[in-house]
């Protein structure tokens, strides 16, 4: 069954790598910021790198906020894309950036003691269970992270990670999924996760 997969063109820089990663699975994918194309997709990717305030400004300017909030098909936020899915982010010029409010939670600057920030590199992830997005991905699997802000553990945490603190490596509520790491840059494990999402 050929699916209609769309990557929301958030105006951020990692769109090509997400597109190429999906294409490596042998799946066709379209990058778009058009409301009707996003609405009619079977699966939607919400990528993002950079800062929350800049990304939200770009999404707002493209008038995509209501469209994304109204999606009922599976949506996967990646890295900053995941962070945009919660209520608000402390990554802001004004103290707090309102986000898409799809999943309860807030983005805070990581408190990691003497450890280095950004949290950059391959770290192990602990899924809540090995179903849905993490089917066939056991505890201790390495994924590639690059971030300085994170979402605390909550009932919506689908996988956790540890770096000076425990934080949400993945979030899930209803049709909305988000991963803090970069599956498009996480080798075989990342490809498995993307495949799982597309097969949801």
């Amino acid at each position, binding site marked *: 069954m050929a699916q209609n997969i769309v990557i929301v063109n958030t105006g951020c820089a990692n769109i090509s790598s997400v597109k190429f990663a999906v294409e490596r699975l042998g799946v066709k994918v379209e990058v778009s910021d058009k409301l009707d194309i996003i609405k009619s997709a079977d699966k939607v990717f919400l990528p993002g790198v950079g800062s929350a305030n800049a990304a939200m400004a770009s999404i707002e300017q493209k008038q995509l906020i209501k469209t994304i909030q109204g999606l009922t098909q599976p949506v996967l936020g990646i890295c900053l894309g995941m962070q945009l899915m919660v209520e608000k982010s402390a990554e802001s010029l004004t103290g707090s950036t309102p986000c898409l409010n799809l999943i309860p939670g807030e983005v805070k600057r990581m408190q990691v003691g003497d450890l280095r920030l950004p*949290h950059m590199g391959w770290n192990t992830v602990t899924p809540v269970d090995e179903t849905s997005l993490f089917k066939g991905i056991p505890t201790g699997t390495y994924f590639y992270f690059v971030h300085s802000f994170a979402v605390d553990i909550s009932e919506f945490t689908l996988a956790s990670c540890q770096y000076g603190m425990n934080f949400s490596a993945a979030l899930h509520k209803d049709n909305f999924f988000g991963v803090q790491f970069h599956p498009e840059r996480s080798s075989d494990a990342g490809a498995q996760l993307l495949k799982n999402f597309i097969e949801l």
Partner: protein
Amino acid sequence: MLARRIIPCLDVKDGKVVKGVKFRNHEIIGDIVPLAQRYAEEGADELVFYDITASSDQRVVDKSWVTRIAQVIDIPFCVAGGIKTVEQAGYILEMGADKISVNSPALADPELITRLHDTYGQQCVVVGIDSYYNEETGVYQVHQYTGDESRTQVTTWQTADWVKEVQQRGAGEIVLNCMNQDGVRQGYDIAQLAAIRKACKVPLIASGGAGELVHFKDVFEQADVDGALAASVFHKGIIPIQDLKAYLRAQKIAIRD
């Protein structure tokens, strides 16, 4: 636990991978894409592509190979060399690179680091530093335009001061290339890296000097660097990446499976 990274560096010149000794006498190693693919399959944690001619030749270099890399590689990669403007960096990031690294142009215009940070975020801004230990003065000094021997010059920056400056301006990672060790495979400059580590609150990558398995163990254990970059030992097959990672795991160093 966050793994220490093994990072093959591919020096690129005219679309080919090359390697010189102490930045000189470059010999062709092979084509970019198959080499990059091989390293990814062998377990490299990240790749750095360093266009060694770009910064010193003052010409616009064809970077279309970045897209070809991004299409086939499923690990992060960084592109270095000749990036002088925010627009050039954006072009490379759009083609699929995860990070861009600036070196000589950042020395010429430190504000470039700030602009890159403000435009694309700290996570993709790497600053490469070529540091040379002057035995006469006992000082580590930053060199510029090291890609071209005839233009290489000593800057007024001492390495530790430049490391602090680039962090304040928003660097997300620092690659410290210890020039005295480069290409001679006698081990990383542990003393310098350990000293810089104390001043470096962002990830620090060691570069220059890897020749044996134990050099990687030493630099992780004694200099506490986040990643170790090497070129010739990988290109020439002196150290297979799988063997290196198995060895480091046996030494109880956190390494990705």
